[in-house]
C-alpha cells in the first residue's frame, strides 16, 4: 500500500519554480496547474495512489470496500469510470448517501477528475462527517487511473447504447460461454469470444489495434469481461473498455426504454408487425428472435439479434428456448415461422410467450431489412 501527497509535491515544484525564475527576473511566473488547483481547495488528509485502488478492485467487490466516483454521472461516469466504482456525485451526496456501506469502518475511496478536481475531497469529508472511519481520496482520479499501463475504464449502459445507436464503429465483445449464454441473448452485433476460448478466437477482433473494444459478461459478479480485456491489452489493443454491469443491465435498460408491452397481431400467434419493427429496432433484447430458415439463407442476412434454428431442427432444440422473454419466430413469408409457432403449441403447450411474424421479410447482408405485411 502506498500513500502519496501530490499536492505537497506540486507545492514544492511551484516554490522551486518561483525561486528559479520569479526571483531571478523579479516578476512572478505563472503557477503550474496543480499548484493553482491546490490553492483552490484544501486536499483531504488521506490520499492513495492508483496501485492502492487497483489492489481493492475485485469481482464481485468486497462488502466492506467501495470505490466512489464523485463526478457528475452524465457524462463523466457514464463514458468511463474506474471498474467497479459506483456513481455518487458530490452534488447529490446527501441524497445518495444511503448507498454507502452500512459498516462505518468500510474502506471508502473517493475519486474525481484529477488533481484539479475538488469533488472527491469534498465528498470524503462529508463521509467522515457521517462517521466513516476509513476514508481515502485517490486524488489523481480518472486521468491518473488511465495513465497506468494495463488499466482500463468501465462504461455505463447509457453510453454504450448511444454508441451503438450512433454506429461509431465500437466493437462489442461478449465474453460469456457461447452456447449457454450468448446464443440465448446478447447485445445486438456483439461478437462471441468466450473468455475460455480467447486465445483461439482472438483473430475475430479487428486488425486495427486502436479500435475501440468493449467487453461484457454476466454483470458485476462476473470476472470474464475483465479477464478478456486484460488479454486484449496484452495483444496490443490500446482502446479497451469493459461494460461491467453486463448483460443483465443491458436487458433491464432496454426493456425500460422499450416501454410499452408487446402487441399481438390479428391472427392467432402473430405479433403485430408495426410493434415488431419498433421493438426489433429499438429494443431487440426484449425478444428472443429465432430465424427458422435454412442456415444458408440465414448466412445471407438476418436480423442482427436473431439466432438460427432451422425449422427441421426446432423440435430437437426446443429445450433451448428461453422462458424469461417473448420468443418470436421469423422466416421470410410467415410459413415456416407459423409452422414453428404451432410446433411449440403442440409439443410444449406450457410455453405461452411465443409469437411468429406473419409478414414478408427481405433480409440484407448488413442486418438491415424490409418488412411487408403478407399478401396471402
Amino acid at each position, binding site marked *: 500500500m502506498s500513500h502519496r501527497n501530490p499536492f505537497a509535491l506540486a507545492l514544492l515544484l511551484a516554490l522551486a519554480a518561483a525561486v528559479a525564475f520569479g526571483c531571478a527576473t523579479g516578476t512572478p511566473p505563472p503557477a503550474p496547474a496543480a499548484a493553482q488547483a491546490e490553492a483552490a481547495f484544501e486536499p483531504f488528509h488521506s490520499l492513495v495512489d492508483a496501485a492502492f485502488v487497483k489492489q481493492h478492485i475485485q469481482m464481485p467487490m468486497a462488502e466492506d470496500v467501495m470505490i466512489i466516483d464523485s463526478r457528475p454521472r452524465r457524462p463523466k461516469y457514464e463514458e468511463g469510470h474506474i471498474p467497479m466504482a459506483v456513481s455518487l456525485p458530490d452534488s447529490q451526496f446527501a441524497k445518495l448517501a444511503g448507498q454507502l456501506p452500512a459498516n462505518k469502518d468500510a474502506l471508502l475511496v473517493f475519486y474525481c477528475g484529477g488533481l484539479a478536481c475538488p469533488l472527491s475531497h469534498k465528498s470524503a469529508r462529508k463521509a467522515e462527517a457521517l462517521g466513516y472511519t476509513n476514508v481515502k481520496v485517490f486524488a489523481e482520479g480518472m486521468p491518473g487511473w488511465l495513465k497506468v499501463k494495463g488499466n482500463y475504464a468501465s462504461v455505463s449502459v447509457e453510453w454504450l447504447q448511444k454508441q451503438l445507436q450512433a454506429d461509431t464503429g465500437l466493437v462489442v465483445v461478449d465474453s460469456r460461454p457461447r452456447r449457454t449464454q450468448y446464443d440465448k441473448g446478447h447485445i445486438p452485433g456483439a461478437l462471441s469470444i468466450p473468455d475460455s476460448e480467447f486465445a483461439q478466437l482472438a483473430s475475430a477482433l479487428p486488425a486495427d489495434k486502436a479500435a475501440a473494444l468493449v467487453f461484457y459478461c454476466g454483470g458485476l459478479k462476473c470476472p470474464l469481461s475483465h479477464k478478456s480485456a486484460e488479454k486484449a491489452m496484452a495483444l496490443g489493443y490500446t482502446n479497451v473498455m469493459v461494460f461491467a454491469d453486463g448483460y443483465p443491465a443491458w436487458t433491464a435498460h432496454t426493456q425500460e426504454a422499450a416501454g410499452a408491452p408487446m402487441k399481438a397481431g390479428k*391472427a*392467432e*400467434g402473430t405479433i403485430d408487425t408495426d410493434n415488431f419493427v419498433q421493438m426489433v429496432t429499438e429494443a431487440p433484447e426484449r425478444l428472443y428472435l429465432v430465424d427458422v430458415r435454412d442456415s444458408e439463407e440465414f448466412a445471407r442476412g438476418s436480423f442482427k439479434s436473431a439466432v438460427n434454428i432451422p425449422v427441421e431442427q426446432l423440435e430437437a432444440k426446443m429445450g433451448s428456448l428461453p422462458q424469461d422473454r417473448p420468443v418470436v419466430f421469423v422466416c421470410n*413469408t*410467415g*410459413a*415456416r415461422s*407459423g*409452422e414453428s*409457432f*404451432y*410446433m411449440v403449441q*403442440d409439443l410444449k403447450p406450457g410455453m405461452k410467450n411465443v409469437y*411468429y411474424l*406473419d409478414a414478408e421479410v427481405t433480409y440484407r447482408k448488413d442486418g438491415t431489412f424490409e418488412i411487408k405485411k403478407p*399478401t*396471402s
Partner: protein
Amino acid sequence: MFRKTMTTAITLLLVLTFVGIGAAMEEGNKRKGKYTYRKVYKSCFDQGGCASETPPLGPNAKTQAEWEKIFGARDFAAFGCSQEWAQLSDEDVKDIFAYLHAHASDSPTPLSCK
C-alpha cells in the same frame, strides 16, 4: 331439352358445391395446416408407414380446383398414410386444405412442400 336442362343443373350444382367447399375450407388455418400436414408424415414415418418424413404431395402438386375436389370428396387415398389421415379431426383437415389450397400451383404463392 330435358336432358340439356338436367346437364346444366347438375353442372351448376357441382360448381356451387365446389365453391361452397372451397369457401368453407378457406376458413382453415393455413399456418397450422402446414405443421399438421408435416406432422402426419413424421408420425407415419416413425411408425414405418411411409418411406420419408416429407409429404408425398406438395401444395403446388395440384391446382386449387383439384384440391377442392379431393377435399370435397374426402378422398385422401393419394396421400397414403391412411391410418394417420383417419385420425385427423375435421378442423385438422380444414387447416391442411387451407395450406394446400393457399399455395396450389395456380395460387398467387405456389409452394413445394418446403
